[in-house]
């Protein structure tokens, strides 16, 4: 069942080893790509494609839904969804990196190796069933990304970004660890009070935590609340919610742009996978304590992200703020997912999953576009984009579509996912006791309208303003990556029902 993870791990190590054999060559990217594509195919196959089975190679019965208790892991549609999303991100980033990394860059093998190892960590986060395992996988991914940001050792901005990312990252993971230690204490105490039984799950099993924490809530409420706050702060850092977001613009701006793409998509997806698992399974019994606070954070996050993006002149920074805003939208899923009505909760979670998938394509694509313009020496600032539509008509069109999707213009993917998210919040608001959740939808709609303004400004620069005229030659890997992103953005919107069916199923199974 873990074949995709194994293949990704293997190719990661293989790449590092290959560096010593073939030296620093761009061809290493192809090896990484092959590994990723195989893993992606296998994940898709497990998720319901069932192609191998039809070919006579019966490894599993698609769609796979299986527990691996010995490894404290599970492979369910929910997990497979994240694997697919993460591996897709990997494919896009590797494609773009193939052109982004210059001949002068050293350690290309390590770059891809770290990328793959980070992906493996992220995949394991999604698959874990135990808080400890989740944390270890989370750290595995984090450590790899710390190193990735510092990849360009001679670059002043890159190293500064790495330093900031590292310091804030380790502080957050220390905070998370402290929070986990408190939760562990409560859970272990409650578990020791329970009648002993054989085969009882570990005190930190996520589903078991759901039971123990709600049992212990009356006795240990302050401790649990403190732990929850620490976890919100720690994971809030990863997914960049206000007020834990301040590193995002600096780091996204300073890091190599392909790494930024990776951070803004894969790393964020992992953060949300962890949040879904921890908040909607382990902490769901204590939901009354944190939903409102998280709701406020969600509104603050989307508002601040969009408002701060308005005056930005650097497209990279603008996209960084926009990705903060989008974290706010997905937070709606965490809030609605804690709703007492399981149907509404599953619907909200499905919206969150869907948004993450679309987000891979649209934000990933937009960052890749920025990386491309940087490589081609066009620049990363708004003014540099003037008249770009004449210089690269097809890719500028792709960028426009992705920006429109980010703004939530129908019939693109961004619209569908936002629609489901906001709609789930409205539905939750119709239930007595959680009327305030409607405000999430209202804030989301208003923010989407606001965001159109700065996305449209980029389009205006590309299409309306005059700029240099001479056409530019875009390297094929960039074009490929952008086409993947473009097709994804459009397909998730136009053929929404295919994906919706899958995410709803995944969300329903997630809640068991």
């Amino acid at each position: 069942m873990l074949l995709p993870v194994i293949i990704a791990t293997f190719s990661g190590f293989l790449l590092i080893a290959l560096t010593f054999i073939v030296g620093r060559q761009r061809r290493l990217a192809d090896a990484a790509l092959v590994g990723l594509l195989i893993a992606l195919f296998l994940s898709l196959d497990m998720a319901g494609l069932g192609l191998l089975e039809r070919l006579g190679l019966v490894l599993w019965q698609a769609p796979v839904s299986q527990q691996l208790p010995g490894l404290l892991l599970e492979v369910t549609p929910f997990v497979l969804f994240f694997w697919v999303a993460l591996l897709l991100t990997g494919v896009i980033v590797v494609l773009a990196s193939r052109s982004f990394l210059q001949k002068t860059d050293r350690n290309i093998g390590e770059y891809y190796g770290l990328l793959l190892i980070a992906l493996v960590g992220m995949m394991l986060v999604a698959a874990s069933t135990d808080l400890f395992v989740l944390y270890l996988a989370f750290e595995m991914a984090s450590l790899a990304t710390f190193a990735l940001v510092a990849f360009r050792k001679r670059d002043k901005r890159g190293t500064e970004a790495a330093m900031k990312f590292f310091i804030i990252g380790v502080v957050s993971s220390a905070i998370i660890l402290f929070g986990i230690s408190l939760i562990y204490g409560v859970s272990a105490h409650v578990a020791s009070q329970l009648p002993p039984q054989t085969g009882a799950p570990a005190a930190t099993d996520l589903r078991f935590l759901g039971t123990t924490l709600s049992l212990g809530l009356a006795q240990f409420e302050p401790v649990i609340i403190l732990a929850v706050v620490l976890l919100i702060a720690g994971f809030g850092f990863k997914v960049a919610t206000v007020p834990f977001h301040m590193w995002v613009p600096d780091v996204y701006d300073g890091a190599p742009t392909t790494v930024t793409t990776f951070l803004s998509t894969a790393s964020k997806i992992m953060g949300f996978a962890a949040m879904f698992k921890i908040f909607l399974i382990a902490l769901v019994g204590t939901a009354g304590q944190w939903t409102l606070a998280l709701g406020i954070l969600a509104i603050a996050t989307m508002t601040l992200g969009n408002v701060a993006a308005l005056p930005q002149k650097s497209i990279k920074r603008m996209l960084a703020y926009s990705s903060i805003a989008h974290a706010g939208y997905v937070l709606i899923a965490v809030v609605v997912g804690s709703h007492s009505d399981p149907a509404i909760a599953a619907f909200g979670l499905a919206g969150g999953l869907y948004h993450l998938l679309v987000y891979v394509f649209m934000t990933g694509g937009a960052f890749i576009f920025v990386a491309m313009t940087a490589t081609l020496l066009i620049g990363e600032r708004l003014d540099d984009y003037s008249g770009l539509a004449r210089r690269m008509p097809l890719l500028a069109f792709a960028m426009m579509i992705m920006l429109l999707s980010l703004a939530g213009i129908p019939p693109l993917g961004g619209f569908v996912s936002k629609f489901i998210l906001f709609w789930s919040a409205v539905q939750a608001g119709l239930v007595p006791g959680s009327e305030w959740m409607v405000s999430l939808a209202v804030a989301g709609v208003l923010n989407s309208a606001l965001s159109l303004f700065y996305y449209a400004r980029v389009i205006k620069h590309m299409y309306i303003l005059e700029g240099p005229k001479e056409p530019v030659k875009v390297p094929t890997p960039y074009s490929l990556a952008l086409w993947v992103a473009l097709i994804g953005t459009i397909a998730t919107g136009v053929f929404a029902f295919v994906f919706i069916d899958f995410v709803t199923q995944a969300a329903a199974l997630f809640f068991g």
Partner: protein
Amino acid sequence: MIVAAPLVAFVIILLTGRWQWQGGAIWTIGAVGLSFVFALGLLIEALLNGAVGGTFPAQEVIWYRWLGTPSSGFVIEFGILIDSLSVVILALVSFLSLLIAIYSVGYMGHEKDKARYYSQIALFVSGMLGAVAANNFLQLLIFWEIMGLCSYLLIGYWYHKPEAAAAAKKAFMVTRVGDVLFLVGVIAVFVIFGTFNILEVSALAPGLPLRMTLIVPLLFFAGAIGKSAQFPLHAWLPDAMEGPTTVSALIHAATMVNAGVYLAARTIPLIVTNVNASLFIAFIGGFTAFFAATMALANHDIKRVLAFSTISQLGYMFLGLGAAGYALNLGLAGAQEGYSAAIFHLANHSFFKALLFLGAGSVIHAVATNDMRKMGGLHKRMRITSLAMLVAALSIAGVPPLSGFWSKEGILAATFAASAGNQLFFWMWLLGILTVFMTAFYMFRLWFMTFWGKPRWENEPRESPRVMTVPLMILAVFAVGSGLVIFPLGGFGNLIYPLVAGAHAEFTAPLDILIRTFAGPNSFLTYISILGVAAGLGWATLIYRMGAISPDSLTAGPGRRALHTLLKRRYYIDDAYDAFGRRFVLGIARLSDWFDRNIVDGLVNLVARLTLWAARGTDLVDRRAVDGVVNSISLRTLRGGRTLRRGQTGQVQTYVAVIVIGAAIVLFLIQIVFPLLGVP
């Protein structure tokens, strides 16, 4: 097919237009022509079935399921809705678009970058057709936004002119206000009925909860107001005249602005659920008709005059719809008449206003200015254009038996009939009559100033080429003849009425219409309005043709001058909007800047100071604790100490500090604030 053809043309031109003859004009013309052929086919079918006995049932063609599963009861299916209303407008829009696209070949002939123009025109046409043919409100909204986008792009076609760019932005922003409300309305309908489908919503509309009956129609109406440039969202249309004249003709006279009327007509089942909603719509319509006409009196830009006139005429249509809705709600007579007259006026207005704009375009093409004071005496030089404009002017003024007369009569009669239910309608009828007078006046002011009097132009104007005059002539025929539709069809009444009441209207013999209009019990109304036309026409002739009254006398005297200035400044509404917009945006920018500077830095400084105190020992703490809070805000300026400036952003630990403070705030919220507020 109707919708898809222009869309395909858009893509083709977008990709290859740069290398084609005339920037790919041929694709646009061909595709729009194809749409027209299909729409015409549908129209003929509808006419055969609906107008002369029998009914033309609404048909839905589903393309595919976009969202949701059938089992969950939550389904959004895209498709098209063909009924008499949409058929009429589809045929109308595709026909006018076709003519204008052909005209563009001449008008835009010497422009650079024509591919952009034609691709956007094609996209616009597909947006408009898609919106009209949409079978659900969501799809309607999508195409509605495409229209808005194209309008924005085309107004700003000459983007290097700052006025054009500003006008484009203004149009976008102002219509957006309406669109957002429209969106809210669509969502509200979805929340209430659980469907976006227009037919289903129409069927369910009588079951609209009572408290929603006012708000929902008005939300939809807000969208219509924005698109159709009604008060108070009218400000963008005159400025939109910065675009090419063909665009003004196509989008801002003949088609897009009608989308608002179409929306109101489409949602009439919702509107009639509340008397006051209809009254409000009629009031806005009547008021705008009057209000815009007054502004047209005092403008010298030929296109702006036409723009105000467009706003005014659209006001008539809303007046008719509102009156119809009102009458329908109370079961009064005149519902059918008002509704069909509004749609009838929509069609007639499209013809003669497109003609006026294209004529104006022809003139502008010849003299290269928009200012009527720099025209004059063009009649001899541009006979075709002049005569075409005359026909259109007579028609819009409402001179019988031209088309404008019949539909305007219908609307005014319906309004008068509705006054049986509410006194207000009588006053709106009076406003309508006043507007008739003013319309005649300003249209002939325009015509005389442009084509008669002393030549005031600088270069030698010449008649436009054939490709431009032929569409003018075709449209002139329609401006004369489209009114005659009233005889076989009762002015669309027979065609469209079933939509409203679900019943088929009785067939009215042509002679009866004549008798009703000129000799019936209420025929004095007709004569009053003809009198108004004659007065306006006569006065304009006196001033601008005979010179019997000096135009300057109109502005002589402080009172009249003040009025003139007020009209010229468009009642200062634009200025107010600009000022508001500027303040608002600047305010937000300032606020965020202030927040950035003061709150974030202040917080950080506070942390920095706290640590400093700890380092300095307790004796200092004592002294500072009193005024420390005050100081901490202005500390930087007070001390200027380098050590204290570490609070600037860009410093990692600031971010960590914010994280810690943020966590503390969350903790504070959960532990203290929520329990205090009684949150579970």
